Each structure stands twice: as C-alpha cells, then as structure tokens.
C-alpha cells in the first residue's frame, strides 16, 4: 500500500517543484518586460494544477501588459484578445480571494478598457453586505463563525457560573454579541460559498468584438457586439452556441468558443 502510494506522492512533489520554477520564471520574465514569456510561464503553473489568487492575479497582469505592448501603426492594443483573458483571470483571482484589493483595482482598470458597464448592487444594504462578504474568503468567515460560536458558549458558561455580578453581566452581553456575530458570519460564509459554487458568469474572450445573435444561428439578427472582457452570465450551453445574459438584462446567443467561464 505504502509502496503503491509513493510514486504518486513523488510526482506530486515534482509537480510542485516544477510549478515553483515556472512561477519564478514568470516573475523574472515580467520584470524584464517579456510579457509573452510571463504569460506562458504562469499558464504552465495553472496547467500544473496550482490555483491561487496571486497566481491568477499575476497571469492577468501579464496578459494585460502583453496586450498593451502593441506596435503603434502595426497592430492595435489587445489585438490577441489579451484584455478578455486579463478580465477573466482577475475575476478568477477575486473568486479565490475576494479580499485581494490589488486585483479589484486592476480589474476596474481592465474593465475601463472594454465597452462593458459595471454591475451596481441594488440597494445600500446590498452594497454593505457585498462589501462585508468580500472582506474575507468564505473560509475566513467560516472560521470567524466557529470562533464566535465557541466564544458564545464559553461566555454563556461564565454568565451561569460567575459569582460576581459584574462578571455575570459581562458574560451575558458579550455572549449575546458573539451569538449575533456567529449568525452573521455563518450567513456571510454561506453567501460567499454561493457566489463561488453557483457562479455562472463568463467573460467574452475573442480578438476584437464578437456578434451576439438573437438565436443560435449565424444567419439570425445580430443584436449587439460586445468587446473582449465583457462579463456575462451563462444561461444555456448548446454545443457551438451559448445563451448569455448581459448586465443590462439583454439575452442573446454567442459562440461558445468566444466565452470562457470564470
């Protein structure tokens, strides 16, 4: 049994070493300004099964810089669809760590280069709730909720056991606060989990603009032409064509190869 497991463990360790080498190479290439090689290296790290917010953040940055490194008069910025890839990877980084402020800032800049509009929460409460949720990962909120639960119960014991009035009072109110924190943190953790597990968003990745048709048929009417980097919600996938929902509520069919799920 142990003998059978060893080779697997060995290859996994090798994969990690290779990934670390590629990661370093990617950073070195980025520092030299060789963004094409940086993209290649970071993509290789992703292929090796690594996934972390920083990795996707760096990959997105390399794509963005590569797209900006066009030759004036010879090619356009983001001619190879780099903007779409950058937006996609910033979204992926934020999904793994919603508290990665750098990624949020850069995503904002990248979205500025597209013809997309930003999603705005409906109400003040929703804004506050989303801001709270994105302060930490779902796991972060889970840990907070468990610690709050433990503290609630410990302070409840203090309230029950303490002989001095002061301690009893402190125990009671702090336990109550902790219970409220526990409920909120659990809800935030669940909300964060839902945002990841039920995430049906996708980013348009194509060289320039891609037509969105009224029906899954290239002869049908073109209802809009989103540029690369526009974020949509996937509704249906029917092989070559996917039905997508835009932020403004418009629905249409787009070539499946022109969108990539976050």
């Amino acid at each position, binding site marked *: 049994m142990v003998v059978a497991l060893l080779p697997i463990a060995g290859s996994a360790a090798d994969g990690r070493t290779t*990934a*670390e080498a590629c*990661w*370093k190479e990617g*950073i070195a290439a*980025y*520092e030299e300004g060789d963004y094409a090689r940086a993209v290649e290296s970071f993509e290789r*790290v992703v292929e090796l*099964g*690594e*996934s*972390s*917010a*920083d*990795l996707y*953040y*760096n990959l997105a*940055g*390399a794509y*963005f*810089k590569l797209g900006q490194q066009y*030759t*004036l*008069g*010879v090619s356009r910025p983001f001619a190879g669809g780099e903007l779409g890839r950058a937006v996609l990877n910033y979204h992926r980084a934020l999904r*793994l*760590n919603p508290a990665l402020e*750098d990624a949020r*800032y*850069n995503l904002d*800049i*990248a979205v*500025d280069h597209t013809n997309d509009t930003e999603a705005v929460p409906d109400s003040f409460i929703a804004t506050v709730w989303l801001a709270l949720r994105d302060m930490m990962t*779902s*796991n972060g*909120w*889970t*840990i907070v909720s*468990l610690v709050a*639960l*433990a503290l609630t*119960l*410990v302070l*409840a*014991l203090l309230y*029950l*056991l303490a*002989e*001095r*009035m002061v301690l009893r009072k402190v125990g009671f109110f702090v336990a109550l606060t902790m219970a409220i924190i526990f409920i909120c943190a*659990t809800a935030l*953790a*669940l909300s*964060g*989990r839902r945002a*990841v*597990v039920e995430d049906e968003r996708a980013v348009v990745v194509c060289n320039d603009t891609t037509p969105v048709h009224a029906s899954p048929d290239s002869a049908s009417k073109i209802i809009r032409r989103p540029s690369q980097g526009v974020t949509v919600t996937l509704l249906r996938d029917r092989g070559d064509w996917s039905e997508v929902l835009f932020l403004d509520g418009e629905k249409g069919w787009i070539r499946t190869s022109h969108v990539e799920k976050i």
Partner: protein
Amino acid sequence: MKVLFRFMLVLVALTSSWVAWGQVSFTVDAPALTALGQPFRVEFTVDAEPERNSFKAPEFEGFEVLAGPSVSTGHSIQFINGRQSSTYNCTYTFVLLPSESGTFTIGSASIKVDGKSYRTKSMPIEVIAENGGGSGAQQPTEQSPENRINKEDIVLKLLVSDKEVYKGESIRAWLMLYTRVNIDNIESLDMPSFDGFWSQELTFDNTPSREQLNGRVYEAYKIKELLLSPQQSGRITIPEATMSVLAQVVVEDKRHFDPIFGGRQIYHVARELRTPPIVIDVKDFPAGAPASFNGAVGSFTLQSRMPSSELESNSADQIEITISGSGNLKFITAPRLVLPDSFEKYDTKVVDNVKLAASGTSGSITYTYPFVARSAGTFRIEPVMFSYFDPATGKYHTLSTEPMTITVTDDGTAAAAPMAGGYAGYGGTMRQLDRDIRYIHTDKLPRRAAAMMVLTPIYWLVVVAIVALFVVAYVLLRKRIRDNRNVVARRMKRADKVAVQRLRMARRSMEEGKRHTFYEEMLRAMWGYISDKFNIPVSNLTKETIREVLYRRGVSAEVAEQFCEIISRSEEAQYAPSAEGDMGEVYAFAAEVISKIEDVVKR
C-alpha cells in the same frame, strides 16, 4: 455712312492692336507615333492673323503629302460685362502618309504676324511597321461584324509603377485601355479588390494618347489611377480587373449602297476585357528599427515650436511638432512626448495638410501637445523622437527636437492645484489620467487555495464538537450553577434579616451591660450586612470598598460616611475600657443608617 466707316476703322485698329499686345503662339500638333501605311494629320495653328502668304511649310521628309495645306480660320469677338475680348486662329492642315518606318522629324514651319516671324518647334514622329497588317475593322472583308474586331484590337492593362516595394511605401497603379477601333461606351468596370493595400484614387489627365504596344499603334486612354500603399509584407496578388465595352464597327456595305448616305453600316460589338493578375512583392522593414519607429515610410523633416522656457504654475502652453515630407503621412501616429509628472497633459491635436499626388502623399502634419504646468520647479523636457524608414536608401532615420528646460515659477496657488494623476476634464468628459495596473505579486508560489469549508462534514463536526463541549461543561457544572444561583439569591434576600438578627443580639448584650460583646456584635452585623447584601466576601471588605460599593449602588456619600463612622466608633469602643459612648445611641444610629441604605438599594 461716313460715321459708320470711321467706327469700323477704329474697330479694326483696336482689334489689330489688341492682337499685337497679346502673346502670339504658333504650334504644331501631330501624333508622336504612327504606323506605316496609316495617313495622319499635321496641324499648324497660329492664334493671330498672319500676314498673307507668309506661311512656310517645312519639308516632310519620309512622308508623302496626301493633301494640304488646307487653311481654316476662325474669329470671334466677345463682349462680357462691357469688356471686349477677341480670339483669332488660323490652322494649316496637312494629311501625310508615312512612306517608310523609322523616326522622322517634321521641321519647323514659319509664319509672320505683324511683321514678326514665328517658328514652330520641330517635332519627331516615330513610324513603325506593324506586324500582322492593319486592324480588322479596316479590312473590308465579308466577315460578320463580330469577327472584324480581333482580340488584339482592344487591350486592357493594369500597370504599376513598381513591383517590389517596402511595406508602407506607395506605388502608383493605373488602368489603361488600348484600342485600335472606336469605343462607343464603357458598359461596366470592375476594379480589382486591392486587399492588403490602402488605396486612394488620383485625379489624372485623361487626354488620350497614341502608344505603341507589341509593334502596333493604339489609342491609349487612362481609365483610372490609384495610389496603393501595402499594409502587410509578403507577396500580394492584385486580382484581375474586368471591363465590358461596346466597340463600333463600320462596314462599307456595297449591296445596300444608298446614293445619299452611302453604304456604311455601323455595328456595335460588346467585348469583355480582363487584365492579368499582378503580384507585388512587399518587403518587410529591415531589422534594427529604432525604438521611436512606428511605421512611417518616406522622407520627412521635423520642425518644432517649443513653449517659452519660463512659465507660471497653473498656466497652459503647448509644444508643436510638424512632420513634413512625402510618404505614408496618413499612417503616422503622434510621436511620443514625455512630460514631467507635474505637467497635466491633454489630448494631442492633429492638423494635417496632406495632398495626394502620383508620387505619393506629401504635405505636413502638425501635432499640438497642450499641457498645464501644475507645480513650480525646473523641469527638463525630453526631446521628441520621430523615426522613419527611407525606402530609397533602405535605412532608418531618426529626427528629434532639441531638449529644453522649463522653469515654472510659483503663482501662489500651487498647493490647491490638482496634481497629475487626478481627474482632468477635457471635451466634456472626465477621464482619469495615468492609471495603470498594479505590479504583480513576487512572493513565493502561494499554497493552493483551500476548498470551501462551510457545510462540509468537517465543518459540521467542529460545530457539533463545540456544542457538545458546552453541553458536557454545563452538565458537569449544573449543580454548582444551581447552588450558585440559590446562594446568591438567598444571601441577597436575607441580608437585611441577618443584619436585624445581629443587631438584636447586640441589643441583648447592651441590655446585659456587656460592652465588649455589644460592639463585637455591632461590627459583625455591619460587615456581614454589606457582605451579604452586595455578595462580597468579608475578607475583601475595607471601609474604602464599603464607601465605593455604596456609592456605586446610589447611596449618598453622607450615609456611607455615617455607616463607616459607626464602624469606626464600634472599633474604638470595643477596646477602650472606659468608653464614654452611649451604646443605645450607637445602636439606634446603626439601625437608622441600615434602613436608609435599604431604602436606596431596594429601589
């Protein structure tokens, strides 16, 4: 009658003097190219009235004069808005037939106008012997009109000025129609798609000329002229151009000879013409392009108008750069201008003055870079570099402006001014300047992102474990909790009662006259009361804590002080053998203070 005659004299005098003032031109007009056996016309034209018999024709060596000179004159006088103008011309026409092939020169003819002699320039005429005989249209054979036009009689050609160019260099392409028959009408023309080129139509002189093609003489018409600029390197094929024409065929018909109109029948024959495809070899730029090269091809010069070297802060100025020359001016992008950070840059204004000509686009483009200097200091303005590729020499050239320093003096409001990187309003839109993505994270490769914990079995296990620990703790400590709760409640309730009991015992001692015991009981009653009432162990009690506790429970400082005074007096009296104090007084006072405290605390 006399008057009329005089008027005419004046008119004639005016006319002749008018002519004498103007420049007299005396020209010859003949085709530069002709075929052996084809008669042609030579015309000598003078635009003034020549002296009689002053025209002397040259020798027509190598030609046979079939007719001429025939003279035709024309005279017109115009009055426009009271101004008189008159034109006069006189043409001497010869019809010549070339007698042998070769190049012959028609010598100069001379003429006299008002006593002055004028000569035409001599003119060379090339005579060629055509192979394959004359055109079908001129051979009166019994063929159908369709067959009277040979394929070679109408030729369409697309010509290019160069077949090997650099990317961005422009070449001229023109479509020529060569014909030996009359063309009635051009029915349609499909120009090829110039994929891979940026094409612009040129205006051109469309007077027909005579040209030699494959040893034959044709009337040549220019149909279209374009300027092409390849946008990609490699071999680019220009596909065929097609044109359909209606040619006119005149047939002398002897059978239906009409005595008045003759027997000429005119037929229209439709013909499809095609040009062969042309391959242009587009070379890419050679290696070693300077950093400031962005695709400019041609030959350019650079002029700049720099701002004044002293500015007040928050004042605007501009740098003007003009690129002039010939080449792909339309494709030039503004040279990059690097300004210090505290300079607020605005959108570059571009004014172009580009003309299209057969030799390529030429003219100038002026870029204006407006800016506002925000903060005071001395700043260096880096030179603006512009590089272009000269296809004639195959080399890159870089032009640059002179570097300069600008001294910005403080206008006193520098602190309030927004710095670069803030928002700059321009053209009604708000844009944020100088925003770029943040740098990548260069730490070690982070660990793989953990899976979601919430709602997993481990999560539930931890929740259950925490709750279970609490339950166990609760069960274990339940008895103590209950006891604790009871002791506390009882003590609080009984505090008053206990105090009353103790006071009663003290009273008994007082009645028995036991001083020492009385004070002892008094002290125990006082301390015990506070201890029970406020759930504080007696060992922790001092007079200070009593004051503090009473104060916190809202008992007035005066009452607290009285309480402490009783304790003090009792302590003193306990060990003083000859105490003066009245036991009854102390007892009554203590009962009163306790009842006061009870009043406050109960409420």
